[in-house]
């Protein structure tokens, strides 16, 4: 039975659309919408100027992120001082992690932007930050899996604080790299960026 049949028969019974047709329509429309949305957001990002990019940064409690990240990156005597609940609270929970992931994209764009003033250094810093961003994304993905209520993802649940801490350390490094880059390449814009981050 196809959609064209009911136009011939004009019958309410024949108007029943088989499930596979609905799936087909949904997949095609979904793909087309996703492609257009991706394309639009990518081009929008490409057109954004420096101020718009900075304005897009979402507020993150950096004191909390810094406490969790330095505990991970710079181990000291009492390495179990921060318990999982504190880590989660310092990072602002899942919402905080999502903000860090979204900000990471903008920070990459800001690092790429700095290639206009300090090409060689900015290229290298951007590459390093891409590596950090990749680790951040992967850690947030693992946290997301750990939050799912399925037995299959139990191992992610146990390691959830570790992944959250990894995410915070990647974010911390990205922020430090970006600020250092701006401090040397465009001191005029440094204060605005530091305030936004």
């Amino acid at each position, binding site marked *: 039975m*196809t*959609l*064209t049949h009911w136009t011939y028969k004009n019958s309410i019974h024949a108007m029943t659309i088989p499930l*596979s*047709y609905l*799936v*087909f*329509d949904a*997949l*095609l429309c979904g*793909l*087309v919408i*996703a*492609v*257009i949305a*991706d*394309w639009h*957001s*990518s*081009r929008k*990002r*490409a057109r954004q100027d420096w101020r718009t990019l900075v304005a897009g940064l979402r507020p993150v409690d950096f004191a909390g992120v810094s406490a969790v990240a330095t505990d991970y990156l710079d181990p000291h005597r009492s390495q179990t001082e921060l318990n999982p609940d504190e880590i989660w609270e310092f990072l602002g929970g899942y919402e905080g992690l999502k903000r860090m992931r979204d900000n990471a*994209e903008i*920070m*990459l*764009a800001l*690092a*790429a932007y700095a*290639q206009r003033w300090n*090409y*060689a250094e900015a*290229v*290298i810093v*951007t*590459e*390093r*930050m*891409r*590596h950090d*961003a*990749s680790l951040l*994304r992967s850690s947030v993905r693992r946290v997301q899996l750990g939050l799912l209520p399925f037995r299959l993802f139990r191992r992610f649940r146990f390691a959830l604080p570790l992944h959250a801490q990894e995410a915070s350390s990647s974010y911390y490094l990205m922020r430090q790299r970006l600020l250092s880059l701006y401090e040397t390449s465009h001191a005029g814009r440094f204060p605005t960026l530091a305030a936004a981050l």
Partner: protein
Amino acid sequence: MHLSIVDWVIMVTTSLAEAVLFAILVIRGRWREFPVFTSFMGIETVINLLFFVPIWSGSWSLYAWIYYSTVLIEFLMQLGVVWEIARIVMRPTGTWVQDARKRFILWGTAGILFAAVVPFLVTPPAAGLFGRLEVRGNLFTSLVFCELIAVVTRTSKSLGLGWRNHVMALGDGWTAWVVVAILVDGLHSYSGLARYSGDLDHVKMFVFLAAVVYWIVQFWLNEPARQPISPELRAYIQGLHEHIESDLDTLDVQE
């Protein structure tokens, strides 16, 4: 063999536009950065000329023979163009950005498998197995190109990779064309190739023609100059990528 006025207009203007674009890509030296796209336009120019032979002689069988024998070449060339877009966008410094190639291949393969399944969800009202295969084949092709360009767009955005003018123009035109191609080929799955075929195909052809004209303008214009990457910087970045890859491999093994 009967062609309508619209068929003639589209055929002649597209042939001319593709030939002009090919000439621009060669004369302006764009072929150095876009060798596959230039070859694609060159091959399209030759194929277009070949099609005029059966049209003048009125031989439908020769037309069909040329059409079906060039389908695979065109498909491979278009696949190559998407790869070229990916290669240019994801290798801004001459080496692949870490994660980018892996992601492109992984998601691209998943997309091709998806594209192979979707056309079989519906049965096009076409005459015979060959007719149905043709409709499904067209939809498969459009889906593959659409998904691949979507993977490039999404990956480049998440990795903070910028698109320079020429590759952006190529990507924009390509995206517009594949989106319309998917909608047209999706509708063909309902109507078959016989009903509304001409009108639907005209829409697809017009969009491709518009994309070619847009490329002619964009590839004629120069891009803003890019600072050259010194061999030392390139070597440094390559070393950095290798170091990161080896770090990640170690981490994967430990996990």
